[in-house]
């Protein structure tokens, strides 16, 4: 996979992940062109596009478009399934996910994506395992956070 983009129906970029090194200018150009092309397509049209020398696979979930670019020998249906699984993961994690969850917690969405896809390839196919890994990391995070708070609290008490 070359890159993954998430954008809204209004053409606002919500998430971008690039698995190939490209310049910022290039990225912006690609994003702009792709968003335009995909948004111009009608709902009944097929989810695959041939764009430049890449294949684009996109799918719309509510107001959000998930769009992946794959190479010629990759399978479109698999990519569609990858998108779907990512959405399922987000859904499980946030509990019936909506666009706003992704807007306000986009770094979480990135974390999940990194657990699921790594370097453009599927890392873990089992949803359970991905979520487990995320939860583990979150748990640690919360622990340190609470420790941090309690330290402050202790420090606070000591000051008194």
């Amino acid at each position, binding site marked *: 996979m070359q890159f993954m983009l998430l954008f809204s129906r*209004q053409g606002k*970029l*919500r*998430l*971008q992940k*690039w*698995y190939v*090194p*490209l310049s*910022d200018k290039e990225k*912006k150009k690609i994003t702009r062109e792709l968003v335009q092309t995909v948004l111009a*397509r*009608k709902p*009944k*049209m*097929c*989810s*695959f596009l*041939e*764009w*430049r020398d890449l294949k684009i696979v996109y799918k719309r979930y509510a*107001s959000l478009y998930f769009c992946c670019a794959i190479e010629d020998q990759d*399978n*479109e*249906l*698999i990519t*569609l*399934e*990858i998108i779907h699984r990512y959405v399922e993961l987000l859904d499980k994690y*946030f509990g019936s996910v*909506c*666009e*706003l*969850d992704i807007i*306000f*917690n*986009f*770094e*979480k969405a*990135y*974390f999940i994506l*990194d*657990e699921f896809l*790594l*370097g453009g*390839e*599927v*890392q*873990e*196919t*089992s949803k359970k*395992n991905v979520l487990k*890994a995320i939860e*583990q*990391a979150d748990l*640690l*995070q919360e622990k*340190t*956070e609470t420790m*941090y708070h309690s330290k402050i609290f202790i420090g606070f008490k000591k000051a008194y």
Partner: protein
Amino acid sequence: MSDIVEKTLTALPGLFLQNQPGGGPAAAKASFSSRLGSLVRGITALTSKHEEEKLIQQELSSLKATVSAPTTTLKMMKECMVRLIYCEMLGYDASFGYIHAIKLAQQGNLLEKRVGYLAVSLFLHESHELLLLLVNTVVKDLQSTNLVEVCMALTVVSQIFPREMIPAVLPLIEDKLQHSKEIIRRKAVLALYKFHLIAPNQVQHIHIKFRKALCDRDVGVMAASLHIYLRMIKENSSGYKDLTGSFVTILKQVVGGKLPVDFNYHILLQVLQKYILLLYLTMILTISAIFIFLSLAILFECVHTVYSIYPKSELLEKAAKCIGKFVLSPKINLKYLGLKALTYVIQQDPTLALQHQMTIIECLDHPDPIIKRETLELLYRITNAQNVTVIVQKMLEYLHQSKEEYVIVNLVGKIADVLVLNTVDTYAPDNAWFIQTMNAVFSVGGDVMHPDIPNNFLRLLAEGFDDETEDQQLRLYAVQSYLTLLDMENVFYPQRFLQVMSWVLGEYSYLLDKETPAEVIAKLYKLLMNDSVSSETKTWLIAAVTKLTPQAHSSDTVERLIHEFTISLDTCMRQHAFELKHLHENVELMKSLLPVDRSCEDLAVDASLSFLDGFVAEGLSQGAAPYKPHHQRQEEKLSQEKVLNFEPYGLSFSSSGFTGRQSPAGISLGSDISGNSAETGLKETNSLKLEGIKKLWGKEGYLPKKESKTGDESGALPIPQESIMENVDQAITKKDQSQVLTQSKEEKEKQLLASSLFVGLGSESTVNLLGKADTVSHKFRRKSKIKEAKSGETSSTHNMTCSSFSSLSNVAYEDDYYLNTLHDRGDKELKTFSLNSELLDSESLTELPLVEKFSNCSLSTPSLFADNSMEIFHPPQSIAASVAKESSLASSFLEETTEYIHSNAMEVCNNETISVSSYKIWKDDCLLMVWSVTNKSGLELKSANLEIFPAENFKVTEQPGCCLPIMEAESTKSFQYSVQIEKPFTEGILSGFISYHMMDTHSAQLEFSVNLSLLDFIRPLKISSEDFGKLWLSFANDVKQNVKMSESQAALSSALKTLQQKLRLHIIEIIGNEGLLACQLLPSIPCLLHCRVYADVLALWFRSSCSTLPDYLLYQCQKVMEGS
């Protein structure tokens, strides 16, 4: 923008509020992102892009201040990072934060580190310089005991890591392969996969560890390792054959339900694609109905696999069924993939397209342009002479609608490909259509199309087909259509199109009777004065005017033009105008310089510029410095620099400095002297420096590649069998008319379209046969074609239920195939023999039984075609017979002249009484041409005499004992002539005639001709390296050229071997990456060749005493290197 917010709000009631701390699941994690939240909300509330920009800039400047302030805590930093990522995503530059992201990853505790790593992986790319700062952090985290830290480090490594720092972390990651946690193992495998992608040789030594990963007890790790194997097997499929067993085991487990069904198995399948595992494929094809969506993806891969491996009928059948499932699916995505699969398989199995033709027609009018495009792609693959008009029309329709440049380029390329690029079998049915279609293509895609297209088009026009009158008509039509196009006012054509027009008008306007060249010039002049025409096009136009000027009588316009453009600011234009001006003053010279219709003829160019010798000598005698080619000057410069470094006084005149020294100074100085093309006055110094000869060749300067004209452009184009097509068309229309009465009108149109699209499909081989211009199998062809057409017809009307018919056409197809191969064989035998000296007779003898075998197997085709086979197989048999005769002849000859290599027999002419074949015998001192005359009649021939016409470049002498007063019935006699060359050339023709008297005293005469190549006169020159050195210095004519080598001959030795075999050069010595070769042109003109290899480029350097020989030899070398 505000209405958008409203929409979002109505769509997701209440969620907006939930983001306030304390509400809903999303808000639980939103505690720290309150500032991000306000930023996001702020942006969403804005109405214009401008305001957004202002807000973000404000935000960025405040962030900049915060991150660089020393008082900022890591926790705040983390929060800032998130906001920076957000700003960057919106397209604003946040590069000031990159370094802080790295710092955060380095210093922060777990959760800050996590955000830091994320920011790094989002901000930076592989070659970013700041990434080096991250290496230390990664190494530290990899060694950490904390699982999460290791995970994060591995994650970032497998996303971005500088290639040169891989060795620093490699051992650590290798250790992680044995980690107890599967998640770590999995990530480590993926990190190594990433390394394998960016620096394959660095991970070579741990391939054995990947094997362990493949056998890992955890599914995830195993699946991750498949990525690596897929990549490695793609690169080198034979190296991992032993793993097939493991792959099969995994696949079995999946199929058997022991492993969870996962989509990683498509990778496995791709891996297995390399190893043909029919059994398991069959299994999968049958069971795959179980899991719905994923299985379809796998199914798709299977179909691909089935068609890419060695075909097996039962598998093909199943795959065809699967494709059917895809194509007929109401789901658009599957339909698209079905079309793709069809496109893929159509060349192998055109009958599938017949089955699905109605679906294809529907897709052709599909509202989704992507589907439409894919359909066109499919049609493009099945284009043949009969359906080309319809398909190209569809393509043009699409072309007019599409705006995306990439699509236009692609489509224009395809149309042109159908029409022009494969000059061997263009499908264009007639001239007018051809030119008009090309006009349409040029006017739509003119400026974006590949430059090859106009070039090929022009070449096609210039070189023409077989038929000269047809060519003239085509050109005439082109000229006429361009003139009408130019007549139209206010129409702008793309520059490329104008260039094509101007070339054609310049070259072929003489074909017009009524329109005098002056009028054409006037039109071109009008274009020239147009401001919208680019200066490149203007030069084309001026060139056209120049060509037309000698033909024009009055030349007011030309004078006006000269007047305008000699003061042009564009130097190029001025140059052209001056040329025109001076030529215009001498019309006779102009006429001889620009002859009519000679664009295809090669110009004889004296490459050594020998006519300037006098001028050069004069200059030299007046004290001018001798000319040094560019590469020499460069070398000199280089060597001077280097000599100064090594040995300050070494360059001066001590000759001892040259002997055996390795420094480039000696090398280049020597070659400077020897390389002078004006050889005056420097010979005496040459003799002094003979010791250093072996190292004479220094670094070579860049030389622009010469246009190598390939002379072997076969202009054989098939002439469409109009009558046949008409027959078929009539049959179709008749049938249609009778059948469609009951059908709706729309249906009828579609059916018509289908029949026109799929006509001739499945008989692709017959189309090929058309090109071979032999009359042998016409009858059969006609039949089969009608049959095909019928089968297409019936299946279209019966909606592809007619399975018996498809099998029938299959058989027909098979038949064709046999016929085709037979013809190939026959043609090969009859074809003019190649220049290749290695074609020994034993080859042709072994081919003979093959031919017989073929006719045997084709005779055993189903009895259904018994009547046909009678017709078909006669001609091949006769061919076989004649071949047999010839080769026996050749073998009889072989006995006489076994000590020399000789060519195959080639029949040069024949009639009912005699046939003449010729051989070449490459003797050491000359080329011996042998014509063997066979008397086929039962009568005696008297005073048979063979004479050779005197030819320009050859000296032909008759060998004694060849005069034959009487030729007995059914006997063979041979005439021998030795041929000497007088002047180098590339290709020459030797022609002559044979005359004889029959018994009844009427005399007959037969003419024939034989092609001779320069190579017939090249012999190896066996000399020592020392002699080579001496000779090298004494030759003044040199030619240098770089030739790209194909992969098969990448090594010097193999490249030289090719040269030795094909060109009969003698390899004197190979020193490192340099090689010395020598040959002589008979009778005794030596030519030396020095080769050097670097990367995949072979630098050739010829020297000879003859001025033109190096050029010709270089041409042959290029041909050989490209051809092999």
